[in-house]
């Protein structure tokens, strides 16, 4: 095998291992307090996930994320559908959606606190604000992408408005809705952690604060990687569902 073909067969996970090994070396011999060796971080991670503090933090986070995402789905998908099928709604709401999709929403969280209190409600609102807009935009795009000839076809064969909506428009928009959902999960995960960190009294935010205040770098990094891993697994799981519907996304 040539060098090129060997490189082609290297599994993608290898770069992670190389990175971990480099980190280990820097941690052992670099003399930087901020970077403890990877092996110790890994061991600490195993300890941390078993502590009651972590389990409580995870439960609080999952609750805020779950409620925020559920609200985003319940509001975002119907709003996207409405904008997709009814032009006045699209004209009126488009500017709002575009402002919020590009806005640095982190800046809004401190403003939410006096309104909603320094607690779970603010975190739920943060998740919602982070997640909902991309769902609106992708749902609307999905509705728009349903081919004109499919709608003509359904009308031609006598479909009622309700039939056309449920049998053609909604299933036709499903691939984009699922893409929107995956991106909303990505943003929602960011939202929940950012919300918690800004409030600094709740869930992982409280733990991060605790570790940093006491300069517990092993615990800090361990928690960072655990949260990264959880977010990654969650998004991949949604991506798995999304790919199951890929078979017809490309064939319209």
């Amino acid at each position, binding site marked *: 095998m040539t060098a090129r073909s060997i490189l082609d067969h290297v599994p993608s996970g290898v770069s992670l291992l190389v990175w971990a090994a480099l980190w280990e070396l820097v941690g052992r011999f670099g003399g930087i307090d901020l970077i403890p060796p990877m092996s110790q971080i890994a061991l600490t991670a195993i300890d941390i996930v078993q502590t009651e503090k972590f389990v409580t933090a995870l439960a609080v986070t999952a609750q805020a994320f779950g409620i925020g995402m559920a609200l985003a789905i319940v509001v975002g998908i119907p709003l996207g559908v409405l904008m997709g099928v009814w032009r006045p709604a699209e004209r009126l709401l488009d500017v709002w959606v575009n402002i919020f999709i590009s806005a640095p929403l982190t800046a809004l969280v401190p403003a939410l606190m006096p309104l909603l209190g320094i607690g779970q409600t603010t975190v739920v609102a943060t998740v919602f604000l982070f997640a909902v807009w991309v769902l609106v935009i992708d749902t609307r795009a999905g509705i728009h992408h349903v081919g004109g000839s499919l709608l003509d*076809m359904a*009308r031609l064969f006598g479909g009622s408005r309700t*039939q056309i909506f449920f049998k053609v428009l909604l299933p036709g928009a499903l691939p984009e809705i699922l893409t929107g959902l995956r991106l909303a999960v990505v943003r929602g995960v960011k939202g929940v952690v950012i919300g918690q960190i800004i409030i600094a009294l709740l869930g992982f935010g409280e733990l991060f604060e605790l570790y940093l205040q006491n300069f517990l770098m092993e615990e800090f990094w361990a928690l960072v990687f655990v949260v990264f891993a959880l977010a990654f697994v969650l998004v991949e799981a949604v991506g798995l569902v999304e790919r199951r519907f890929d078979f*017809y996304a490309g064939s319209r």
Partner: protein
Amino acid sequence: MDASTRDACPARDAGHPAGGVADATPIVRVDGVTMRYANGVSALDGIDLDIPRGRLTTLLGPSGCGKTTLLKIIAGLIPPTAGTVAVNDRIVTGPGPDRALVFQDFALLPWATVLRNVAFGLELRGVPRAEREAIAAKYIRDVGLAGFEHQYPNQLSGGMRQRAGLARALAVDADILMMDEPFSAVDEQMRRKLQEDLLSLLQVEKKTVIFVTHSIEEAVYLSDRIVLLSRRPSRVSAIRDTGIAHDQPPDQIRRDRRYLDTVDEIWDTLKQYLQ
């Protein structure tokens, strides 16, 4: 269109292979149909046209001449700016069970199997599942798709997708089968095969067919009557009955004197629109 051209149609009926089905009263009557879009573009300019029952009539004209627009107006999918379309003496105000359409881009639901797609027209009409799937299965066999009932459209070739589109249109048992450039998205060899198969299928089904194409050969090969449309804004520029017997073997038609002559004549007429 003048009165003498209009009167020419019943006289030709005697020579038509499906003579028993064809009768003198037109099944579709297009009366002064004009189509102007909101942007001022005029697609159709006062089209008067009778479509004879039980025969295959083709709308032929240069690209962008409004053939498909006229077909969609007859289908009831778009209302004309002026004029009326009557089907069986009833003014068209929207789609109806008497008309089925085969779409240029197939218009199959990508998430549904061939079976569900072919049965979809019946599904929208509320026909119970077992019944509609039995009907669909019959037409899937008739169009030569047996064995592909549970495949999805993206697993089929273009030709097979259009067979499914044709089966769906046949399954609703409409009087009028409209076909909007149905074979233009498939390759030349498949197109010839589909044309031949369509002719043999129509020997059995005895439908009124309104066919839209920009291919002169396709029009002459398939049609009993050809309606030539002029460039936009379109008018009816000529009507030709091909006089070709479509019950002869498919490859005979392409050697038929009338086939070759008609292709030449129509080309002579259409050439003037291609400056």
